[in-house]
C-alpha cells in the first residue's frame, strides 16, 4: 500500500460533516435472526464493527464463574483452518485491530479495520471465521486458563479488586451480578464448559451487530448477513432474574495499602427506565460532574481528602449499581466516609438547587456534540442502543429529555432508586 496515495483519497472526504443531532441509525434483521444497526459515514477510510452477544457473566451457571470471560477470550484463538498466530498475523497484516471483552450482560467483539477492499476483506473474513467456526483448541484452553488464574491471583492482592468484589457481592448476595470468578472457579473449568457456554449463548437471537463507517447500506447488509450466517437460530433469551435489594450493611477488610478504598451503593437502575434522565441530571450535581460536583467540592477541594471521588449509575439489563467511590489515606477513611454520607444524605433530602440543576443541564446538553464526534464514540452509542433495545431516536431526543428534568423529578427519582436502607458500604484498608 502506498500511504501517500491513501492520504489524498481521504483528505478530500474530511469536509463531510457528521450530523449535528444524533446520527441516522438504520436497522434490520439478518435471515438468521441477528439484529443489525448501521450508521453510514464516509468521512474516513475506517470501518468499525461490533458484535455483542447476551453472553455476559450473568449467564454463567452456578459454579462456573469465569466461563464467560474465558469463552470470549478463546473464541478468537483458533478457527477452522487458522490457529491463533495465523489469526493475529492476518489481522496485523492489514492493520486491523480486534478488541472487546465481557461485562455482566454482554460479550463483545469489536473490529476496527481500514475500509479499502483489500484491507477490509481479509479482516472481515477473520471475524466471520471467529463467529462461525471457533475451535477452542485444548492446549490454548489450558494456557489461557492458567493465565487467567495468574491474573486473578494477582488482582486479588489489590485493594481496589478486593473492594469491588466485596461491594458487588454485598449488593447482589444471591444474584448472578454478585458472582465473581475466583482462581478456584476458573481452575475447575474444563474445555467442555466453554464449548457449552458458547453454543448456548453465542446465538443469532442473542446477537446485535453494530456497523459504523465507510460502507454502503448494500455492503453493510451483505456483511451482516455473512457474519451472522453461521450463528445458530437457537432459542431466545430467558430474562436475567430481578435482584432483591440488600439490607444496609458495612464491611471492613484489612489491607496493608497506604490508602483505604471506599465504595457505597446499591442496585438502582435498569436500561430503559423512565427515571434515567432525572438520575443522570441529578448525579451530575452529586458526583458525576467532575470538579463541579458536590462530592468533589466537599471531599477533594475543601478538605484535600482524596484525589478522585465520583458517583455514577451503571444501568444494566436488570438494575445495575448506583456507586460512590473514593480513595484516601487510611487514617482519614472514617472522616471521608462520614462526609460522603452527609453529602449523599443532604442531596437525597433536598435534591439539587435550581442553579445546580441548570448547570447540570447546560453541561449535559452543551456537551452532547462531544459524545458523537468520532466514529468510535458513535459505535459505542449505537451498540448500546441496539443491545439494550433503546429507541432508535434515543440520541436525537437526548437533549430534550435532559431539558425536561425538574428539581422535583430528580428528588423523586432519587427517592425511588437510591434508598439508604439498602445502601451497602465497603472499606478496604481502613484503620
Amino acid at each position: 500500500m502506498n500511504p501517500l496515495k491513501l492520504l489524498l483519497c481521504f483528505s478530500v472526504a474530511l469536509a463531510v460533516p457528521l450530523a449535528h443531532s444524533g446520527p441516522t441509525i438504520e436497522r434490520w434483521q439478518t435471515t438468521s435472526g441477528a439484529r443489525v444497526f448501521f450508521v453510514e459515514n464516509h468521512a474516513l477510510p475506517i470501518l468499525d464493527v461490533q458484535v455483542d452477544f447476551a453472553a455476559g457473566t450473568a449467564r454463567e451457571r452456578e459454579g462456573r464463574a469465569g466461563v464467560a470471560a474465558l469463552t470470549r477470550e478463546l473464541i478468537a484463538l483458533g478457527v477452522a483452518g487458522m490457529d491463533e498466530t495465523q489469526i493475529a498475523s492476518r489481522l496485523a497484516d492489514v492493520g486491523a485491530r480486534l478488541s472487546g471483552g465481557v461485562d455482566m450482560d454482554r460479550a463483545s467483539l469489536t473490529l476496527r479495520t481500514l475500509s479499502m477492499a483489500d484491507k477490509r476483506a481479509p479482516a472481515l473474513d477473520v471475524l466471520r471465521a471467529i463467529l462461525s467456526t471457533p475451535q477452542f483448541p485444548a492446549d490454548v484452553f489450558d494456557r489461557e486458563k492458567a493465565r487467567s488464574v495468574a491474573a486473578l491471583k494477582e488482582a486479588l492482592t489489590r485493594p481496589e479488586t478486593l473492594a469491588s468484589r466485596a461491594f458487588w457481592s454485598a449488593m447482589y448476595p444471591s444474584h448472578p451480578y454478585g458472582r465473581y470468578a475466583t482462581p478456584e472457579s476458573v481452575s475447575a473449568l474444563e474445555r467442555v464448559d466453554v464449548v457449552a457456554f458458547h453454543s448456548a449463548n453465542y446465538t443469532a437471537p442473542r446477537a446485535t451487530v453494530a456497523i459504523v463507517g465507510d460502507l454502503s447500506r448494500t455492503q453493510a447488509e451483505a456483511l451482516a448477513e455473512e457474519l451472522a450466517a453461521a450463528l445458530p437460530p437457537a432459542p431466545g433469551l430467558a430474562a436475567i432474574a430481578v435482584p432483591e435489594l440488600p439490607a444496609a450493611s458495612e464491611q471492613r477488610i484489612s489491607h496493608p495499602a497506604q490508602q483505604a478504598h471506599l465504595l457505597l451503593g446499591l442496585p438502582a437502575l435498569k436500561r430503559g427506565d423512565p427515571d434515567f434522565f432525572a438520575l443522570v441530571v441529578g448525579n451530575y450535581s452529586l458526583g458525576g460532574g467532575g470538579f463541579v460536583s458536590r462530592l468533589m467540592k466537599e471531599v477533594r477541594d475543601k478538605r484535600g481528602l482524596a484525589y478522585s471521588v465520583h458517583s455514577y449509575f451503571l444501568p444494566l439489563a436488570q438494575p445495575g449499581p448506583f456507586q460512590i467511590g473514593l480513595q484516601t489515606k487510611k487514617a482519614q477513611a472514617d472522616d471521608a466516609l462520614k462526609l460522603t454520607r452527609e453529602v449523599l444524605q443532604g442531596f437525597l433530602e433536598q435534591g439539587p438547587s435550581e442553579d445546580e440543576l441548570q448547570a447540570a443541564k447546560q453541561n449535559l446538553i452543551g456537551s452532547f456534540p462531544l459524545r458523537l464526534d468520532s466514529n468510535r464514540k458513535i459505535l459505542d452509542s449505537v451498540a448500546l442502543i441496539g443491545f439494550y433495545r433503546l429507541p432508535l431516536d434515543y440520541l436525537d431526543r437526548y437533549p430534550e429529555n435532559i431539558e425536561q428534568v425538574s428539581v422535583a423529578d430528580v428528588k423523586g427519582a432519587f427517592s425511588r432508586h437510591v434508598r439508604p436502607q439498602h445502601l451497602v458500604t465497603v472499606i478496604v484498608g481502613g484503620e
Partner: protein
Amino acid sequence: MPAREPDTVKFYQKQFMPMPYARLIPLLLALAAPLAALADTFEQQLANGLRIIVKEDHRAPTVAHMVWYRAGSMDETNGRTGVAHVLEHMMFKGTPSAGPGEFSRRVAAAGGRDNAFTSRDYTAYFQQVPKQQLSEMMQLEADRMRHLTLDPREFAHEIKVVMEERRWRTEDRPQSLLFEQLTAVAFQTHPYRVPIIGWMNDLENLAPADARTWYDDWYAPNNAYLVVVGDVEHQEVFQLAEKHYGPLEARQLPVRKPQDEPPQLGIRRLTVRAPAELPMVMMAYKAPVIRNVDQDVDPYALEMLAAVLAGHDAARFSRHLIRQQRLAVEATASYDSTARGPGIFYLYGSPSEGRTAAELEAGLRAEIADVQENGVAADELVRAKAQLIAGQIYKLDSMFAQAMEIGQLEAVGIPYTLNRRLLEKLQAVTAEQVQAVARKYFRDPQLTVADLDPQPLPPASGERAPSALRH
C-alpha cells in the same frame, strides 16, 4: 482527574502491565504523524513568542484547545521534585478575575471537558468544547497563563490531594514502584531519574513559594504553544489568539542546563519487595532518541524492533514467550524514540506460575540474541509497518489524538511539519538496520534490571494490617 461516564462498563481485564506514564499515547503511535496532516494544518506566531498551530477537522462541530508549556519534571531542581505537577493542579485554583473553581465551572457551563497532564518534558492543559466556545476557553487559558493567584490556603489543600494521588498512583501499586525505582537507578545524574509526581518527602516539604517560582520561571507565552484541532477556520483562530493571548508579555526564561547522563559502566540490578502475587522483571537498556530527523537511523530501527518484538498479538514475545514456551503470562517491549532527555528501551513481563523472574529474564535475553544473530524476517517488518500506517489513519478519528500528536512532537523539539518525514523514515527501515541496533544497544554494560519480589498479604481475617509498605 479521571472522569467517569455513567455508561462505564466493567470489562474483564487481564493482568495490567504498567506503562511509563509520562505518555498518554501508545509509544509507537506517539512517534509518527497523520498522513493527511499538512494540507489542513496552519501555524502563526504572536509578537510575544506564542506559537499557534491549527488543524482543521470539520467532521463534527467540536474543537480541542490545548496549551503546552515547555516545562516538565525534568526542569525541576533537587528538593522541589513534583513542583511541575503541583503547579498543574494549582492552575485550577483561581486568578483575580476567575476565583477558585471558576475555571472548571465555566468550562462545564460551556458544555466542555477539561483536564491537564504533566510529563517529564512538558505540561499541557486542554479543553474539548463545542466549537462556538473556543473564544471563552482562550480567555480562560490566557488569564491563567500570567495571572494565577496561588493562594497559600488553596495550596495547603491541594498538596494533600497530590499526596493522595501519589499514594494511589505509586505507593500502592507494586509495578509503579518497580518502574520508579528502576528509573532512579538507570539514571544517576539526569533529571529523568526523578518520578514526575515527585518524591513524597519533597511533596511534604513543598511550599507555596516553590510553586510561585516555578510559575514565574516557565509560564510565559514565549515558553508555550497552542494546538487547536477541530471544526474551525484557522484565520479566525489566529485572530482569537491575538485578542486573548496577544496582550501577555514575553518573559526572560531560565537557562536550561543539559545535565547529560554519563556513560553507564556496567550492569545494575535492584529488587523491589512489595505486596503482590506475580513476580515481574523489568529490563532497561540505554538507547538513543531522535535528535536529527533526517540524519538519524537508529531510533527508527529501534521503533521497528519494538514492534517486531511486541507490537501485536502475533509478535515474537507473544508467540514465543507466552504461547510456545509458556514462560510468561505477560511479556512486552516498549521504546519511545522522541524525548527531550535520554532514551530507554524496556523489556518486561511476569513469569508463568512455577517459573521465575530469572528464567523470564533469560527468555527475554534469548529473544534479543536471536535478533542479534539471525535478524528479523521481511514479513515481520512489513507487518510492523502496516500496523504503523493503520494506526496513523485511526488516529484521524480523534481530534484529541491529533492534537496530542502535534503537541508531543513540538514538546521534544521536532517541528510538527516533519511528521510525514518521520513516517517515511520509519517506512524506510531495513531488516539489516534492525539487526544492527539489536547488536549495538543491547549490551550488559548498558542494562539495568529490576525484579519485583512479591510479598504475601497479611492474613485478612480481621487482623489489623501492619504498617504500610516502604518505598
